[in-house]
């Protein structure tokens, strides 16, 4: 067992527990985006930042990947944490404003403006789909490619994967590609997933740059068969 302080509270958890798991267990909320209980933590989005240590040595770490240590002092909602968290959300909004998950995060954390150049990325490289595909579907059909600016996710050589079973798990878990089921014009996308009754990806060309690794796509097949 490891003893540490969580927002001033002396707590004890099993060794190997991450700060995020411990905080959630003791009822301190920490927002996450690239974290999923069923998948291994990856630490890509930095939304789950918390402050550890004291004085000048205090630093921000991602709680989903940081394991608790004996005597650690953790603050999950200090001023510094809130500021960093808001900045992360603002940046996410700048790159992918059409995601309902990101819109919800912004509203929940009172982020009212976005000061950066607006982009409409269809992927934020959170890696959820990659882990989903590997860890839950045991397929390893998609993965990260290249690096830096050119980093992307997809199948090797961008061709149909032999491993892919068309389970759709990647699309299910993706926080960015809800555009597929919301609206085709990113600038005007207001999430209304529930009000949407038809699948917009029928108009194929408009979805050229959407995330869809399935070939053939399940949705497209259903629509085709209805024609």
């Amino acid at each position, binding site marked *: 067992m490891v003893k540490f302080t969580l927002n001033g509270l002396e707590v004890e958890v099993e060794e190997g527990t991450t700060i995020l798991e411990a905080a959630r267990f003791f009822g301190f909320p920490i927002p996450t985006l690239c974290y999923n209980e069923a998948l291994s933590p990856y630490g890509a989005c930095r939304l789950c930042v918390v402050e550890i240590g004291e004085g000048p040595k205090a630093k921000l770490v991602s709680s989903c990947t940081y394991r608790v240590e004996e005597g650690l002092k953790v603050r999950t909602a200090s001023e510094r944490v809130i500021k960093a968290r808001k900045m992360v959300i603002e940046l996410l909004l700048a790159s992918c404003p059409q995601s309902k998950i990101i819109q919800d995060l912004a509203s929940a954390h009172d982020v009212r403006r976005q000061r950066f150049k607006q982009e409409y990325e269809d992927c934020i490289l959170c890696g959820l789909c990659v882990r989903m595909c590997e860890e839950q579907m045991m397929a390893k059909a998609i*993965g990260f490619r290249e*690096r830096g600016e050119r980093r992307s996710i997809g199948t*090797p050589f961008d061709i149909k994967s032999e491993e892919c079973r068309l389970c759709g798990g990647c699309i299910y878990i993706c926080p960015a590609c809800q555009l597929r089921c919301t609206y085709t014009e990113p600038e005007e996308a207001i999430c209304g997933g529930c009000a949407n009754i038809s699948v917009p990806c029928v108009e194929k060309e408009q979805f050229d740059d959407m995330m869809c690794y399935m070939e053939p796509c399940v949705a497209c097949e259903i629509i085709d068969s209805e024609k």
Partner: protein
Amino acid sequence: MGPIPTEEEKPAGRQRVSKPGKEGGVGGICSTCNQAASCSYRLKNEGLVIWECDLYESYETPGVAKIAEKYEGKPGSVISILEEIQATYGYLPPDMLKELSEATDYSLVDVYGAATFYKSFSLKPRGKYLVSVCLGTACHVRGGPAVAKEFERRLGIRAGETTADKEFTLETVNCLGACALGPVVVVEGHYFPQVNPEKVERIIDRTREGLDKIEIEGDERIFPIEVSCPRCNHSLMDAGHLIDGYPSIRVTLSFGHTHGWLRMSSLYGSYNVESEYEIPKRTIVNFFCPYCHAELRAATACPECQAPMVPMIVHGGGIVLICSRRGCKGHMLDFDGANI
């Protein structure tokens, strides 16, 4: 990222070429043997298959399975395997990545991820001459980008591409470890120092004419040279310690967990060295500058044994490259490059 190449684009490296004159090789370049990437015959020769080559005996290139076998059970070996494939074929043929994923525990996704992550790997066949223009900090501020632009203009391709005649592949790199000579351009292991856009045309012409590497076989000359660190330009000569009656060249070396000094004879053509520690034969050691502590490592592989080469600036112009493998006598002296 292109699709998997079609049948005719596949390397012919693995199949035995039976008759002289029969087509073979990648894009018209001989790649019949496992020395293909660095073979000096190949670099000079026009022909599809080079028959007079003495390395020819070993022309049957190892398949992926054979390369992978060597690394079996060693975790994290995917990069070494990819390096070896690249050294053998000059690039990473897509279907070999697939074979590799089948022969090892790595999935195609992992293999492909690593192959696209590192800049030194190429998924496309490279041209006969690889031109690397340095855009590292030192070369950048001295005008590297203008040099790169000029190469792009003259060759009609962009960085990362290969000319239609499969002659040149242009790439930009971040530091070639010879900052003191910047802006640096390396063409097939030849260093061109202080390049400016006006010199670009000559470099291309010189390359087309054939860069003469003065290699040690056939190069019986023995004369003393004075060298300095390619990174900080500090002289590496140690007048207080003579070898062969001349001031020795002192560097720091490291292999495994051992670090110490190494003194080499400054006589070009002499292999006398003294070292703080005994270096086991055939080990590849890392050389460092004792002054700026930068690693001395060239982008060039030893023509004899494929180990990385160690570059040093020769006073009076030029670069000397020596093999980093103990006991290997591969080295070359590049006076010409400097006089462009």
